[in-house]
């Protein structure tokens, strides 16, 4: 079991800065994030985009801001559980919270700070009416084990790197691979696009461009996909598997079931210390809501700072918080 003082759910900018502020108060932090790397949306969605509203930094690339936050947090030796989604939260007998991930990693802490942004990133599911009926019965939103597709017919949809990479990889595994994409151009790496076009010429995969999957049919198990081709019109293609790869989208997910006061996919907090309705659980950054809330990184930093003061008082009810300026006391790591 991983034990810490403040268990932070979400390793985006707000969560990372909380490590620093907690560290100044001699509190240790551990972060859980469903993405394989720290940085949240900044690292996953827009690492190369400039941000202009970080005080004192007229322009900073999102990826560079994450690097800076990691460096700032480093003296306080945060722990990370990455690539795992915080799934369940329970209270143990000693009053600590026990948070278990989808992969079974168990964490325990007296304080939980939810800094989950818009939620955990999950594959996007196409709005095809009956798609849920075929999940695990021919429809998969990610390739877990390529061997599942050995000698099977596979239809992949999407035009990004993962769609092309899997189409290329599965060319040697599956009996038949069709990649359906809405236009002629792809947004994937040039190498992959060239390779896929070559495989298409060799007849090893089939690129069906200017086409979109519009329906699914089957009898208990997926049997065919309906495709609308710009020129050829409707096509029904028999297949064993359909893998739509349309990127990731954040969802609140299991946090919604933790007994927190939730309004419009955000957690209601008290702006005194960003505490939730559950004593000991705080919510900071984009995931919280309160009158006047703005989803800005700089607001998340402020919220993280006040949260840490309150967490300190909660963890050390007998101690007085000694507020110090870093210019006076410097940074004393662990």
């Amino acid at each position, binding site marked *: 079991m991983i034990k810490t003082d403040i268990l932070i759910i979400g390793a985006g900018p707000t969560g990372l800065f909380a490590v620093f502020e907690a560290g100044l108060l001699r509190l240790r932090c551990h972060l859980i994030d469903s993405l394989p790397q720290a940085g949240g949306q900044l690292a996953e*969605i827009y690492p190369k*985009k400039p941000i202009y509203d970080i005080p004192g930094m007229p322009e900073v690339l999102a990826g560079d801001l994450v690097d800076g936050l990691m460096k700032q947090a480093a003296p306080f030796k945060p722990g990370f559980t990455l690539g795992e989604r915080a799934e369940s939260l329970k209270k143990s007998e000693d009053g600590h919270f026990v948070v278990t991930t989808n992969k079974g990693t168990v964490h325990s802490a007296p304080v939980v700070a939810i800094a989950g942004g818009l939620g955990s990133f999950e594959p996007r*599911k196409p*709005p095809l009416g009956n798609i849920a009926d075929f999940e695990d019965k021919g429809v998969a939103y990610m390739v877990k084990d390529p061997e599942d597709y050995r000698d099977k017919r596979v239809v992949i949809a*999407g035009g990004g790197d993962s769609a092309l990479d899997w189409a290329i990889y599965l060319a040697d595994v599956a009996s038949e691979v069709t990649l359906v*994409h809405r236009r002629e151009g792809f947004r994937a790496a040039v190498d992959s696009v060239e390779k896929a076009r070559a495989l298409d010429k060799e007849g090893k995969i089939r690129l069906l461009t200017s086409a979109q999957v519009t329906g699914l049919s089957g009898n208990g198990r997926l049997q065919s996909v309906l495709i609308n081709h710009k020129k050829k019109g409707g096509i029904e293609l028999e297949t064993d598997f359909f893998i739509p790869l*349309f*990127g990731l989208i954040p969802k609140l997910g299991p946090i919604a079931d933790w007994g927190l006061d939730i309004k419009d996919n955000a957690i209601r907090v008290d702006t005194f210390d960003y505490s939730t309705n559950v004593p000991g659980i705080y919510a900071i950054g984009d995931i919280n809501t309160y009158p006047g809330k703005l989803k800005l990184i700089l607001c998340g930093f402020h919220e993280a700072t006040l949260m840490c003061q309150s967490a300190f008082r909660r963890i050390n009810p007998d101690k007085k918080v000694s507020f110090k300026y870093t210019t006076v006391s410097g940074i004393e790591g662990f």
Partner: protein
Amino acid sequence: MESIKIKAIDRDGVGHTIEAPVDMNLNLMEALKGSGLDVKATCGGMALCSTCHVYILTEHKLPEPTEDEEDMLDSAFLVEDNSRLGCQLRIEPDMDGLAVQLAPDGD
């Protein structure tokens, strides 16, 4: 403050007429979201998520989509010739009377 009227059809097929000021540097996504329509706008308007995917229903002359917008439309569903990302359309006076429909949202 000068404003224009835009008609927006939500995912239940209900029409809403919204007013959007033209001097606030707003984009269509912000105007729709600000009027209470269910537009997630996950990425905040950077053409990075496609959750503001709309169909343009009128013949208004709009700026052509950039390569970024085309790329991001790849992760939208049921993309048609009249598909656009709301975040990439700046509200301009000549958009008065524009009608749009929110595209189906993936789950």
